[in-house]
């Protein structure tokens, strides 16, 4: 289930030095912690706190999410294609939430 709950879009092949756009989507309700049930009980916060992308093991982007990020967070960012290898994505959050996804990239 974990691998099916995240989708990343990375160009499979690109030229060295090219700036590539990466899109990453993960399934998560992002419960804000500010809502209440109809009986007035507070619904506890359950959000993704951090999203990290590494390129061949080196961190290239780190995002800290707060309650204001919409459900099923979509995040778009850029990186320079330096070498062939693997882009790894990791989302971590409340209640031990952790999802990883990776994508291979070939740089010519």
């Amino acid at each position, binding site marked *: 289930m974990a691998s099916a709950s995240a989708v990343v879009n990375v160009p499979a092949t690109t030229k060295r030095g090219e700036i590539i756009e990466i899109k990453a989507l993960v399934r998560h309700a992002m419960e804000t912690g500010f809502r209440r*049930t109809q009986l007035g009980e507070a619904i506890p916060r359950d959000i993704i706190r951090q999203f990290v992308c590494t390129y061949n093991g080196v961190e290239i982007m780190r995002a800290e999410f707060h*309650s204001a990020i919409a459900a099923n967070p979509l*995040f778009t960012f850029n990186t320079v294609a330096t070498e062939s290898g693997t882009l790894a994505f990791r989302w971590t959050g409340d209640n031990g939430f952790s999802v990883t996804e990776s994508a291979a990239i070939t740089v010519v």
Partner: protein
Amino acid sequence: MTSRRNFLIAAGGLAGGIGLGSAAGGAHATPDEMQAAIRQVTGQAPVRRGRVKLDMPPLIDNSNSVSLSVTVESPMTPADHVKAIHVFTEKNPLPNVVSVFLGPRAGRASIATRVRIADTQTVTAIAEFSDGSFWSGTASVVVTLSACLEEGLI
């Protein structure tokens, strides 16, 4: 049928409620809280306007999912790049929205995501540069249906 007296009592209660809500902070953050959150990031450094472009739709139908993009003018070289982009709101329950940490390997200082917007307000994006300077950009949005506090809306 609502008599004039009842209407006035109700209106007075409503106005009092609004005053109380803003005085106590209520469920919404205030512009002061946003300034405090911004100062936590910037410290004593001045924040100048410009170089940061915050793109959001001016009119929001579904405020549970609003596209937001931030683009910062920067060559993104090891000597001169954007270190971080922070987004803040005035009237969401919390002022912080997202903090993104980048480096010269980003190539382009540009991010996009989808956010919740509680109310008609001004959203602020602040970029931290490698030379320690801070620049900001804002977007004003009008909300027709509120997020965060409504029940039964995800």
